[in-house]
């Protein structure tokens, strides 16, 4: 894969605070990469390093095959969209869009042509003469994207562009960004807190923790085969159930529970023995009609029911282990009921308690 952005052994320190350490990342041409991680893990810092807004402490950054480690932000062929939109309040929308082009000493005709094209793509033509204060949040964010668009940048950097918007608008703009990506086909790096955004937009997701990338893989892979406990816990809502136990002769055994692991793909295709943690997604615990497909069955005692419309989350206990299960929204269960549940070893996840890595 030809890489559009290549980050090599990147270190970034603020004084004595190590924010990024020895980070390596290759992003392919036209790829949509999402950086996902909890607050303070260094996502924005990484993005600012790529943009050239922060001087790196060590390592290199290559964009489009050029080493841009020392280049100015404007020379890197990037466009950036910020969470707070960061529109210039004294300029009209048109002024905002053309500011970067004017700085690049582009001809008037070229500028107006590019502005018109961006406005057309983003459907903000009627707003061109307005000031940002007279725009709604969604319109502002569109203008902010337009500012990156007019630059014809090969790389778009987004730092939580939608997190200031309400849920509905967020969903709309998410779709628009996805369409924009397939239309323009340029590389996009997108920082977010929102798992749904990450799962729906990304070609690949990089899960970050403490300045390091915990897993870099497709959304499908991250969801189904998380590489370690952190990723497993981070992805999915409600989060995965974890039960501590032991692997004995092909079975996972915990108190009051025994699940044969036939069909589980071990990381290096060799069965393991000894202490383990099993991770079960609430939606992968079979109930009702799905029980037929489950290998091992047991009973769970319901303690709390959360109906969410499309589905229902129940909090229950198996033996001494509390678990939560996602059931069909039409299910009728009450606290105190016993429900039959089943496990599908092929969809389970096993982790080593000491290294926290996938078994």
């Amino acid at each position: 894969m030809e890489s559009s952005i290549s980050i090599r052994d990147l270190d970034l320190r603020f004084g004595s605070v190590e924010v990024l350490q020895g980070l390596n990342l290759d992003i392919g041409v036209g790829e949509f990469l999402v950086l996902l991680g909890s607050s303070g893990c260094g996502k924005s810092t990484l993005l600012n390093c790529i943009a050239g807004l922060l001087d790196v402490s060590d390592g290199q950054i290559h964009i489009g095959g050029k080493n841009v480690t020392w280049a100015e932000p404007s020379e890197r062929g990037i466009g950036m969209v910020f969470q707070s939109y960061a529109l210039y309040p004294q300029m009209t929308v048109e002024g905002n869009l053309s500011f970067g082009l004017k700085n690049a000493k582009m001809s008037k005709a070229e500028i107006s042509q590019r502005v018109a094209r961006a406005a057309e793509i983003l459907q903000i033509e009627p707003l061109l003469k307005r000031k940002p204060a007279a725009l709604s949040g969604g319109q502002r964010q569109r203008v902010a994207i337009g500012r990156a668009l007019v630059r014809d940048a090969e790389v778009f950097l987004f730092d939580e562009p939608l997190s200031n918007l309400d849920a509905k608008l967020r969903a709309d703009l998410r779709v628009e960004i996805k369409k924009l990506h397939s239309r323009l086909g340029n590389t996009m790096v997108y920082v977010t807190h929102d798992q749904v955004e990450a799962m729906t937009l990304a070609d690949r997701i990089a899960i970050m923790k403490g300045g390091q990338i915990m897993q870099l893989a497709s959304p499908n892979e991250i969801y189904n085969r998380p590489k370690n406990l952190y990723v497993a816990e981070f992805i999915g809502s409600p989060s995965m159930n974890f039960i501590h136990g032991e692997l004995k002769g092909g079975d996972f055994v915990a108190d009051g529970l025994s699940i044969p692991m036939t069909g589980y793909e071990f990381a290096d295709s060799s069965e393991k023995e000894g202490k383990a943690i099993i991770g079960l997604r609430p939606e992968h615990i079979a109930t009702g009609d799905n029980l037929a497909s489950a290998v091992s069955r047991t009973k769970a005692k319901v303690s709390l029911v959360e109906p969410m419309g499309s589905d229902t989350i129940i909090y229950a206990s198996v033996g001494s282990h509390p678990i939560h299960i996602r059931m069909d929204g039409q299910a009728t269960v009450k606290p105190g009921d016993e429900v039959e549940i089943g496990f599908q070893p092929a969809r389970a996840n096993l982790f080593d308690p000491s290294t926290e890595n996938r078994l």
Partner: protein
Amino acid sequence: MTEQANRLLDGPRGPKPKRVFSRRNIFLYGTLLMVTIYYAIPLYVMIVTSLKGLPEIRLGNIFSPPMEVTFEPWTKAWGEACTGLNCNGLSSYFWNSIKITVPSVIASIIIASVNGYALANWRFKGANLFFGILIFGAFIPYQVMLYPIVIMLRELGLYGDLSGLIIVHTIFGMPILTLLFRNYFTSLPEELFKAARVDGAGFWGIYFRVLLPMSLPIFTVAVILQVTGIWNDFLFGVVYTGPEAYPMTVALNNIVNTTQGVTEYNVNMAATILTALVPLVIYFVSGKLFVRGIAAGAVKG
């Protein structure tokens, strides 16, 4: 469901009635009134006195309005009052003050705003040290520096000259103004600055095209601070300029303290009001902007 009509019960409904003469209001407005009187009475006395003739003043009723309004004290204060050496009134000193204030206000604000901008946004190496030294400068008593600066200006050949005083005012305005601008620029969203950098604007491009247009309130505050501070300055004026170049405040002092002949209270009052006129006008014209600018640090731009 009950009927529409009886859903509303008797008792409180709509906005809560406010009593005009509540204890709180009496206390609040009483205090305001007292403070207003405290500040307004001296001004009143000055204006009234400046419009009276000397015989009327000798009657001693300083609060009574003039029986016969005369503008003669004003013309005398402006054109003929004696300031020790000559008797040309305040007019030439008024122009001295203008010649001192205008360049020092402009120079100090330009330099300080660029300083503040560099400190807030460009965090260059040693920025914190530089800022620390600058702030420390604000706390050194002027008296300590008075004489060393005399020597420095003399060595530069600027002592006793308007330009020397302009330089002194510009330098002494630096700490507080730089702090003011730095804090204002820090309060602006940082992403705006980042966006401008991605858009390829440089140091000056960002300053002039992005930040300046957003900074009218803080510039107003700076102008007011500097105009009043420099216009009202007496100490530097008397120390660093010679008799020909005295600012208006020094001349006023000389008029009031002239010991020859009778004390012309009306002329003194008129001269004082004339001297205070410039800061007064500045406040009236830009008071609203001033308040907004002071508050701007607290509200996110």
